[in-house]
């Protein structure tokens, strides 16, 4: 560990140190506000350590991690996302949880650590370890409101399924390792691209690994857990699962298959294509008549990751519109939208229950115009309507898809985004329809604090800004790509 490596790993180190400091703080005096502030400060410190890591040259840090521009971009993204998630968590816990709330932030930070580890990992072991750190902390986070059973059930469900999928992942890795002889991603990929087509065991191994990726990204055959977990988990945790955890895995997926041209190897291409197509269709169809907003967002995230997989399959053939750039832009815009949406769900909740049902949003326009403007902007961004970053993201994916002539996938993407428009509009319809008298009593009146108000405004403005003038983000993404 030379000094230079030390500087490189500084963001991760600070991130790891923060929970320790928080534990010490809890030991001294258990105070919810201090814990939250400490974790935010820790995250900011890690964020400011990133430029330092960026300008020290040499990417490879021991053969486990590789901290290159790409990883650092995702570091920054995840740190910011977690900071944004902490604010509503604070208010949510104040409102809904009577037990001791400080451990929530510990779990949150370890989960972020796991996800960041994924983004930087370059080796099977680091991949597996980060994945497990992430998953285990998520089990506890999902079941945090332990006095209510639905949280625990979601946690249990998530645990069993995650364990099964990581077992498959491991078994796949072992098969690949048995053929390749080394666990480095680079060697694996070189081995695959040379003699991938006839070495059955290695390809089968990769196919099994796809289960691990698929489960975490909640794409079709492995998606069934996500609606129940999103519904059971507290709103901020669902936001975290939908954004940071999936972001980490996606970063790793792209790094793993970076040099490997998917379109060439027929089995992998068919698998990923099938997954993408079915995710889009199943995600959209199941969301069509969904009356629970959280489950609706879960299904829509399945569909959105179907779109991202299209960009992934498009790969890096076209120098103008690389698949990975499109996917990264999509992820950034998706983060903003999904975190904002779950934050709003978190705000519209009271002691007994969260405002999950569609009817809780009836007439929101006329009760809370600014909140509903934010939610409509997010819904339009998910639907991919211009003036929002969702449109530019979808356009980017379309461009990368067309540049590599994936016509069938593009057509399916178009049909699905038209399907998707329906249920996003239903949410806005619910919001601007008139409230009849007796129903008015049952509605939850949202209590929007100043801080979350500002944060929401920032998110919405970012959304529209990226939609109208995305050059800034595109520039930084293109610079960060390998």
């Amino acid at each position, binding site marked *: 560990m030379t000094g230079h490596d030390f500087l490189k790993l500084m963001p991760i180190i600070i991130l790891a140190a923060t929970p320790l400091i928080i534990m010490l703080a809890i030991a001294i005096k258990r105070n919810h506000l201090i814990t939250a502030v400490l974790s935010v400060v820790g995250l900011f410190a890690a964020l400011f350590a990133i430029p330092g890591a960026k300008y020290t040259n040499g990417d490879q840090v021991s053969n486990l991690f590789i901290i290159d521009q790409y990883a650092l971009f995702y570091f920054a993204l995840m740190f910011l996302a977690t900071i944004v998630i902490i604010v509503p968590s604070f208010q949510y816990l104040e409102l809904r949880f009577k037990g001791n709330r400080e451990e929530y932030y510990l779990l949150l930070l370890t989960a972020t650590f796991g996800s960041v580890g994924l983004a930087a990992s370059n080796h099977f072991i680091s991949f597996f370890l980060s994945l497990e750190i992430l998953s285990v902390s998520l089990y506890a986070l999902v079941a945090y409101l332990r006095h209510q059973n639905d949280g625990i059930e979601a946690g249990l469900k998530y645990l069993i399924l995650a364990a099964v999928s990581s077992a498959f992942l491991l078994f796949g890795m*072992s*098969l690949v*390792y048995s053929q390749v002889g080394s666990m480095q991603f680079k060697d694996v990929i070189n081995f695959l691209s040379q003699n991938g087509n006839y070495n059955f065991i290695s390809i089968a191994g990769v196919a099994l690994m796809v289960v691990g990726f698929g489960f975490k990204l909640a794409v079709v055959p492995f998606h069934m857990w996500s609606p129940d977990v999103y519904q059971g988990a507290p709103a901020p945790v669902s936001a975290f699962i939908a954004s940071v955890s999936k972001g980490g895995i996606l970063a790793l997926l792209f790094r793993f298959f970076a040099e490997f041209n998917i379109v060439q190897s027929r089995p992998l291409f068919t698998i990923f294509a099938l997954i993408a197509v079915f995710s889009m269709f199943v995600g959209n169809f199941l969301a069509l008549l969904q009356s629970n907003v959280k489950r609706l967002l879960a299904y829509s995230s399945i569909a959105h990751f179907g779109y991202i997989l299209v960009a992934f399959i498009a790969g890096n053939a076209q120098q103008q519109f690389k698949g990975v750039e499109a996917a990264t832009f999509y992820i950034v815009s998706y983060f903003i939208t999904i975190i904002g949406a779950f934050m709003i769900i978190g705000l519209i909740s009271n002691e007994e229950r969260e405002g999950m049902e569609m009817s809780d949003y009836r007439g929101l326009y006329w009760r809370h115009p600014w909140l509903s403007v934010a939610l409509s902007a997010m819904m339009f961004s998910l639907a991919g309507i211009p003036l929002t970053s969702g449109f530019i993201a979808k356009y980017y994916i379309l461009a990368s898809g067309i540049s590599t002539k994936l016509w069938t996938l593009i057509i399916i993407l178009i049909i699905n985004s038209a399907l998707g428009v329906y249920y996003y509009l239903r949410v806005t319809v619910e919001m601007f329809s008139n409230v009849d008298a007796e129903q008015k009593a049952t509605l939850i009146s949202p209590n929007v604090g100043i801080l979350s108000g500002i944060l929401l405004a920032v998110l919405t403005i970012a959304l529209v800004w990226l939609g109208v003038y995305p050059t800034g983000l595109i520039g930084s993404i293109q610079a960060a790509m390998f």
Partner: protein
Amino acid sequence: MIAISLNTGLIIASIMFFTGLIGVMIRKNIMFMLISIEIMLNAAGLAFVFAGAQHGQADGQIMFLFILTTAAAEVAVGLALIIQFYQNLKRSIPMLPII
């Protein structure tokens, strides 16, 4: 010095793996599901050991160590959740039939 060839090792591991898998699918009791998951993870570990042995590297066994630790962590959290789950049942908080 390798008594068992790679293929046989992998076959053993996959048999073990699938028994665990079937265990998860069939058994209704959640405790037994956790046990079957353990079996699956160990099977994967075993496969790693065989792979490592094949290439004469220690990576496989190191990987197995990591697998052991993480499997233990998972089961621990799982048991904690189950206990909390039944405590809630005593206070008769309604239970969704998830099994």
